């Protein structure tokens, strides 16, 4: 794991100060500790996730097992193993991806831990951490005292309305299946190597570009995070057909239209600008997303000659 360069860290800190104003870092440090404990926790259970945006609602329940930094997700007839920069589908050989490296940062200074109160949920002693941004509620996260696991979370949009909710329906501090799966898992991994990020900005609306990789199908993959939320953006040469975005609704930001899809966990956006197809996926709240889009390359009007050529010759 590589550390951020001093230049990048300075840029990020400066951006945080400019965008969020003067905030105390003490709360962020406390939040960082909770999140670090949750990342290394061991537990199992069923998790329900709900998300609402633009009149759409998505809901899903999956079985998860978390052991250390490794997470196994069962749902939709398949099992996925995620963790340590690797992703693979259980039972499918040669289907894995492994990152060659990555950078980490702490939550941005704009987030402040407003309170940390004790509660009892699912028969367990937990602490609920309230995270504010600009003195407005941004998130609440419930952490299990014994294991450090995050039992639930709520994310709010810029209007203070609930955007995403996640809760464990049942909780077992002793994961079992994941260790069996780990032994049986025999994937070989395609290594994802680092790549130059080109003209993509270092900081976008308080999100720092911490890594960039060679993406699938000769695309470029840049990963941005503010330490609490994150998103990936993929750049593909050419004006590709919308694929799953074909019937998607569009959102307008500063006069530009973006196709979007909602899942219980993420928002997906697609647009074309300057002969490049952009795909963005992330768990950031909608108001952050709009700020991000304002600072990324915009969609450009369709090239009539390109459409004519495509129509004639495919």
């Amino acid at each position, binding site marked *: 794991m590589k550390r951020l360069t001093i230049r990048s860290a300075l840029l990020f800190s400066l951006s945080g100060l400019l965008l969020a104003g003067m905030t105390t870092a003490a709360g962020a440090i406390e939040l960082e500790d909770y999140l670090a404990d949750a990342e290394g926790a061991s537990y199992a259970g069923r998790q329900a996730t709900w998300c609402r945006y633009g009149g759409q609602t998505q809901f899903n329940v999956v079985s998860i097992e978390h052991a250390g930094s490794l997470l196994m997700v069962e749902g939709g007839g398949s099992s996925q193993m995620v963790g340590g920069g690797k992703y693979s589908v259980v039972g499918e050989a040669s289907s894995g991806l492994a990152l060659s490296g990555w950078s980490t940062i702490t939550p941005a200074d704009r987030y402040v831990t407003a309170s940390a109160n004790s509660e009892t949920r699912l028969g367990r002693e937990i602490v609920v951490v309230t995270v504010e941004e600009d003195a407005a509620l941004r998130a609440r996260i419930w952490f299990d005292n014994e294991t450090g696991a995050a039992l639930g979370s709520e994310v709010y949009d810029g209007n203070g309305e609930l955007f995403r909710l996640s809760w464990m329906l049942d909780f077992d501090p002793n994961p079992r299946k994941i260790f069996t799966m780990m032994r049986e898992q025999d994937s070989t991994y395609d290594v994802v190597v680092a790549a130059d990020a080109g003209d993509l900005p270092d900081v976008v609306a308080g999100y720092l570009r911490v890594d960039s990789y060679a993406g699938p199908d000769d695309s470029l993959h840049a990963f941005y995070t503010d330490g609490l939320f994150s998103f990936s953006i993929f750049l593909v040469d*050419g004006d590709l057909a919308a694929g799953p975005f074909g019937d998607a609704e569009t959102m307008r930001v500063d006069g530009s239209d973006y196709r979007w899809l909602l899942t219980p966990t993420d928002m997906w956006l697609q647009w074309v600008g300057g002969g490049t197809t952009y795909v963005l996926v992330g768990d950031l709240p909608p108001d952050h997303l709009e700020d991000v889009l304002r600072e990324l390359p915009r969609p450009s009007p369709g090239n009539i000659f390109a459409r004519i050529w495509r129509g004639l010759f495919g």
Partner: protein
Amino acid sequence: MARVTSSNSCATAELVSAYLDGQLQPGELDMVVEHLNGCADCIGEFHTLKDIRAALRTLPLLEVPQRLLPDTHPGEQLSAYLDGQLTTTEYDFVSSHLDWCTDCRLELHELDAARTAVRSLPGLEPPEFLSVHRERIERERWTRRRVVTAGVGIAAAAALFFATFGPSSGSAGDLDINPFFDQHQARVSVEAGINVVPAIAPGATP
């Protein structure tokens, strides 16, 4: 060099040649030296062989005349040589061959002259009756061409209309976001943020 058998009956005589070649086996050297001390015939043979080898080494090197070499004339490559259609290697070979081969130089000259003659032939005028036929054929062809052109124009206009204003299904390629999902998942797995929720791909059903 092969071992030479001496004309006499000495058992070690054949080792003399090997001695001169430095090809004696261990133990044979002592035998030869001891034998040469007492055998006048072998001493004479030794000196004879030595003189022959010295004479052979001083002979001048002979060059084999090209005419004695296998047939390596360029043949059909000469035409390509004139047309400038040879590769660099082939061109070098033909050029160096032409330096010494009179036959090929002559053949090249004749080939070039024949081409010049063909190019300088006058054009042939068709007979009168054929000219009348040709005018009629030209008129019919022109009419047909105008019809075809009009058809192509209409088709092109229609294609342009549908390509521009029709549905945009025919594009450079389809966007498959599943590989993006996989790679995003791998990266998010090392992110210590609020992503305690495992990501779900669009369209996935539990």
